[in-house]
């Protein structure tokens, strides 16, 4: 490749053609532009005239320059210009591309893939073989699976980063088995790993090693914690560079269940710092909804930290049998529960109905035997919808009849009458201790302290399902904790009391752990190994390398002990669930640090970065094309054809193509329209400007005639009528809009329809006039105008219609009318239909019709032509014949009068039917 500074050429020999440019200059200069041949009879008068300017024969210098530039650009373009060409070292032997595909590689994954593809393309051009190795899963020791570099490059598209950190140990072991002689390109993710240096040394020993590593720091988030009621988030970066600001967003479902950003915070790394901590003060409602924190704009699994139960505070309702009972605090059945729950949960106490309305996560009934039936019903419904009811026994439950002989829906098992006391003064046996928890129990794995004993309990009636419902038992096999599902929720009964009267369980740490296992309370901080021992967890949702949370699919259960370890192939980060408990496995743990990779001496990572190779062929050829197009225009202008073409409008297309950025409609929108202002001050009739000048003038003249008549006959004094453009003008100031429908009328835009609908909803009226009543009704089917009206009115919010009934208020708002003629006397005029249940009251001439104004009146009587007057006030169009015609014109004015009165006064006339009733009432 031939290079010139930052430019390189893939086909440099073509540049020799640049030497031909001076020849081209001479040729172009010698040949003037071709003349235009024109026939012209007046040539006899031209004969003998001489040109004044001899120079015009030559091509002007600027046109020459334009053409030379165009040709030069074409030569350069075809020579394959490349900006910042990469030095291509023609290596030999097989090429191994080793890709670090840990989470840290995700933010610039595409750039990495492009870098790998460039190396592989270069190898392909040199005919070398190659192998693609992923650091997360190195192949089995053995011969390298070498293939043609082009094939290997095709496999790059399928690679994705893994959502965990790499160790490189397996890769080191694999590399140790390789034969020397291979060149290696290593795309490093930039984080320190235990075996990175060893692997680098091994690979450098095999052959040339190039390490490509983007210089940007890697960013990560530690799990969010709750510290003193505040949420604490910690961000990490791998390189202690200059000050840097990042934005952290907390994402979770909003009250409607849609995931959205709930909180946003900006964290600023100080120069030289690799860690920044920020405390966020969030209302508990918001905090409980946060599902994860991410670094905005940073797509990597490490930049996401999932929130689990440790970030939530459950709402627990505690209910005691008789709240007003005076007694010792330590004997209260709720005392130990309060102590156990207060640090990690929000404890509520009060009447049951109030507490259920506050939608608690769990309800604890401590020694409550009976509930009022409405309370019991509410509680049962709440449990069935997914609540957790935890009951403790006690003297009252033991004494009550609840669950005796029949199933109580709020008790998991039937109870036997009375309780049992063991190890007391009057009994033979010793206090019972707890039996080890069975594997199916949610308490499995919890260590049982030796000093936990039970002296009294309520006994369950033996039954076929008792064994299945028992999740903890005493050493003698009697159930201690029983559970049954109810709907989506569950009911748990602890057969002993919640205070220390009947057992020492509430005094022990086991009590707290059991509450946690039942998801009544939540732990603070990360679970430790012992807590999770013996549990099996199912992946609920898993992170991918880019930090996207996805479906987990079917995966085997994960033992609880494993959850505390670092994520890896057997433990992809994500949310793990066991029953109601949720644990997040995050890429970075609470103690995580991001350490930049260190390399052995002699190996320095490089990165091509943004200034990568850029192929300039396209832009240069495009420039050549533009120059040639300019040359066409210039040549046209020189021969005088451009001006003629522009006159003829033929060049309008060229101009459009050149100036596509021409500004559109620049009407100032914020300047109030004077017509609108005037119309808002006074009653103004309006018509829809159809664009047909003749029709619009008739509409205007018609409304002018009507306005004049209204002014003469009533106290309404309308302003001169106004034509409205549906696309632009404000409609709400016009009480009535006359809309003549023509066959060729353009359909208004969606925005115009939206405003028309708003106008109709706000009480406006549109008078549609198809002006075809003279021909409608003849022949079959609708007239063209009627069909057009149907298309125009389809998007409008028009209610059901009916022909004007004879008792419609339109027939009597000002004049008594029984027909509504315009220039024509059409068969029917349509208005909004009366409600089907409208009935005529006894003794009333009219039905009690719907309130409000009909939003549309539709007819074809060409009213505007009937009303139209010219400037001197004389009718513009003949109506009918002779005196009968004048009568028809008068009726058409009366219709217009009624219409305007209807719009302005609504159903005022309709309400007059109530006048006798009102008078009668007043008389009394």
């Amino acid at each position, binding site marked *: 490749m031939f290079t010139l500074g930052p430019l390189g050429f893939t086909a440099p020999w073509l540049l020799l053609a640049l030497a031909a440019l001076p020849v081209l200059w001479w040729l172009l200069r010698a040949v*003037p*532009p*071709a*003349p*235009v*041949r*024109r*026939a*012209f*009879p*007046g*040539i*006899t*008068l*031209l*004969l003998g*005239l001489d*040109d*004044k*300017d*001899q120079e*015009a*024969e030559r091509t002007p210098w600027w046109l020459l320059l334009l053409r030379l530039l165009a040709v030069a650009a074409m030569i350069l373009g075809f020579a394959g210009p490349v900006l910042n060409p990469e030095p291509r070292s023609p290596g030999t032997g097989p090429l191994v591309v080793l890709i670090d595909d840990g989470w840290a590689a995700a933010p610039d994954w595409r750039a990495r893939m492009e870098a790998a593809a460039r190396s592989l393309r270069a190898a392909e051009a040199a005919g070398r073989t190659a192998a693609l190795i992923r650091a997360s899963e190195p192949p089995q020791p053995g011969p390298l699976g070498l293939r043609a570099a082009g094939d290997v490059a095709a496999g790059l598209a399928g690679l994705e980063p893994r959502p965990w950190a790499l160790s490189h140990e397996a890769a080191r072991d694999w590399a140790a088995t390789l034969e020397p002689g291979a060149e290696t390109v290593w795309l490093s993710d930039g984080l320190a790993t235990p075996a990175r240096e060893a692997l680098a040394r091994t690979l450098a020993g095999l052959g040339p090693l190039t390490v490509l590593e983007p210089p940007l720091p890697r960013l990560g988030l530690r799990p969010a914690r709750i510290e003193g009621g505040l949420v604490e988030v910690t961000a990490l970066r791998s390189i202690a560079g200059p000050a840097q600001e990042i934005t952290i967003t907390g994402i979770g479902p909003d009250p409607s269940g849609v995931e959205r950003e709930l909180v946003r915070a900006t964290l600023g790394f100080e120069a030289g710092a690799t860690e920044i901590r920020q405390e966020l003060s969030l209302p508990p409602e918001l905090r409980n909804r946060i599902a994860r924190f991410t670094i905005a704009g940073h797509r990597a699994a490490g930049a996401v930290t999932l929130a689990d139960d440790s970030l939530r505070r459950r709402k627990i309702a505690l209910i005691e049998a008789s709240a007003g009972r005076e007694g010792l605090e330590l004997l209260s059945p709720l005392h130990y529960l309060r102590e156990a729950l207060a640090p990690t949960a929000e404890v509520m106490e009060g009447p049951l109905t109030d507490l259920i309305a506050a939608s608690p996560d769990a309800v604890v009934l401590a020694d409550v035997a009976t509930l009022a039936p409405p309370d019991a019903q509410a509680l049962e419904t709440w449990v069935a919808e997914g609540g957790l009811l935890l009951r403790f026994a006690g003297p009252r439950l033991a004494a009550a009849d609840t669950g005796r002989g029949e199933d109580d829906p709020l008790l998991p098992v039937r109870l036997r009458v009375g309780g049992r006391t063991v190890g007391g003064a009057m009994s033979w046996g010793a206090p019972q201790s707890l039996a080890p928890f069975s594997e199916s129990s949610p308490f499995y794995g919890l260590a049982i302290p030796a000093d936990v004993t039970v002296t009294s309990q309520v006994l369950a009636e033996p039954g076929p399902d008792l064994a299945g419902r028992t999740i903890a038992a005493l050493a003698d096999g009697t159930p201690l904790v029983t559970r049954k599902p109810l709907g989506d929720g569950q009911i748990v009964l602890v057969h002993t009391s919640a205070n220390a009267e009947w057992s020492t369980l509430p005094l022990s740490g086991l009590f707290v752990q059991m509450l946690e296992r039942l998801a009544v309370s939540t732990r603070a901080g990360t679970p430790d190994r012992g807590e999770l021992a013996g549990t099996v967890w199912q992946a609920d949702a898993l992170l991918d390398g880019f930090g996207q949370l996805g479906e987990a699919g079917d995966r085997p259960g994960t033992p609880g002990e494993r959850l505390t370890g670092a994520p890896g192939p057997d433990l992809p980060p994500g949310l793990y669930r066991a029953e109601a408990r949720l644990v997040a496995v995050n890429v970075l743990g609470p103690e995580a640090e991001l350490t930049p990779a260190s390399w052995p001496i002699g190996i320095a990572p490089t990165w091509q970065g943004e200034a990568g190779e850029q192929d300039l062929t396209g832009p240069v050829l495009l420039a050549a094309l533009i120059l040639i197009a300019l040359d066409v225009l210039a040549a046209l202008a*020189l*021969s*005088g*054809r451009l*001006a*003629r073409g522009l006159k003829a409008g033929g060049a309008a297309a060229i101009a459009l193509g050149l100036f596509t950025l021409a500004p559109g409609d620049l009407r100032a929108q914020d300047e109030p329209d004077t017509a609108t202002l005037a119309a808002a001050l006074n009653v103004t009739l309006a018509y829809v400007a159809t664009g047909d000048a003749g029709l619009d003038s008739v509409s205007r003249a018609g409304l002018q005639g009507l306005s004049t008549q209204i002014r003469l006959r009533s106290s309404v004094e309308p302003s001169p009528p106004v034509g409205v453009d549906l696309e632009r003008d404000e409609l709400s100031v016009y009480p009535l809009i006359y809309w003549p429908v023509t066959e060729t009328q353009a359909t208004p835009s969606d925005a115009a329809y939206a405003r028309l609908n708003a106008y109709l909803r706000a009480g406006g009226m549109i008078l549609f006039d198809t002006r075809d009543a003279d021909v409608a009704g003849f022949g079959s089917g609708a007239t063209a105008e009627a069909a057009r009206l149907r298309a125009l009115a389809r998007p409008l919010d028009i209610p059901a219609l009916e022909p004007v009934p004879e008792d419609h208020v339109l027939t009597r708002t000002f004049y008594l009318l029984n027909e509504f003629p315009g220039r024509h006397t059409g068969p029917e005029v349509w208005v909004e239909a009366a409600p089907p249940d409208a009935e005529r009251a006894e003794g009333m001439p009219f039905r009690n019709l719907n309130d409000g104004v009909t939003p549309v009146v539709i007819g074809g009587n060409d009213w505007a032509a009937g009303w139209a007057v010219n400037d001197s006030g004389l009718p513009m169009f003949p109506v009918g014949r002779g005196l009968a015609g004048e009568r028809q014109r008068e009726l058409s004015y009366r219709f217009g009068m009624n219409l305007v009165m209807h719009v302005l006064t609504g159903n005022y006339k309709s309400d007059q039917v109530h006048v006798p009733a009102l008078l009668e009432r007043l008389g009394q």
Partner: protein
Amino acid sequence: MTALRPRAEALAEPLPPLLARARHLAAGVVLGEHGRRRPGLGDAFWQFRPARPGDPARAIDWRRSARSDQHFVQEKEWQAAQAVVFWVDRAASMRFASAKNGETKAGRAALIALSTSVLLVQGGERIGLTESPAPPARGALQLERVAAALADPAMQDYGAPETATLPRHSRAVFLSDFLGPLEPVEAALATAADRGVTGALLQVLDPAEEAFPYDGRTLFHSVGGSLEYETRQAGDLKARYLDRLAERKARLAELAHRTGWQYHLHHTGDAPTSALLWLYRALEGRI
């Protein structure tokens, strides 16, 4: 031709019958059907007038005179017919139209000539073409003949007026762009003057010939192709071309004035009615 005749008749329709003003020449008078609105020789009744001394006795209208004590003489309306001959330039230069699908000068000239002919025939005058050997005649058949002849294009680049048929004391109308050599026109006008023929010159020009809207390097050629002229800057020529055109118009007007003819300029971009009206008035002798 089929299109030309109806269009010409349509154009002629709104005008009143044209009365060509005949020169009162004794030898050349041929009685026509249309009176001169003055008493004279003719067939149609004009008026009664009291007999004066010197009236021959047979001139007295006895039926009228019997109703009164006076003698009355019946006067006839003076009727005279006029021959009008046309020369319509049909050379190649006339087949030029600057506008796309616009009307050519030849088409416009033929239209005006033929509509004038229609008016004249309606008025009872005789019409003919200068180049046709047949004498002027009247009637619809003659109109057909004239229309057929006008539809026939000529081959040469610029036309020259024919004077083969130019009856003495008739009227003549020459329609051309007069852009060719002027000598034949001068000769024809001299011949016409010799024979006592007066008439009208109607110069028909295209708007482009008047405006010269050309620019840039241009190779002009005549429509027939016999002449070529190349310029590098057509725009520079405009002023000088217009000077020459004005000079040519002045020359034609002066020629017409000297020989007692009328001169008028008509553009194909204008309505043909104006030219027809002018020609009507010119033949009436009102200009």
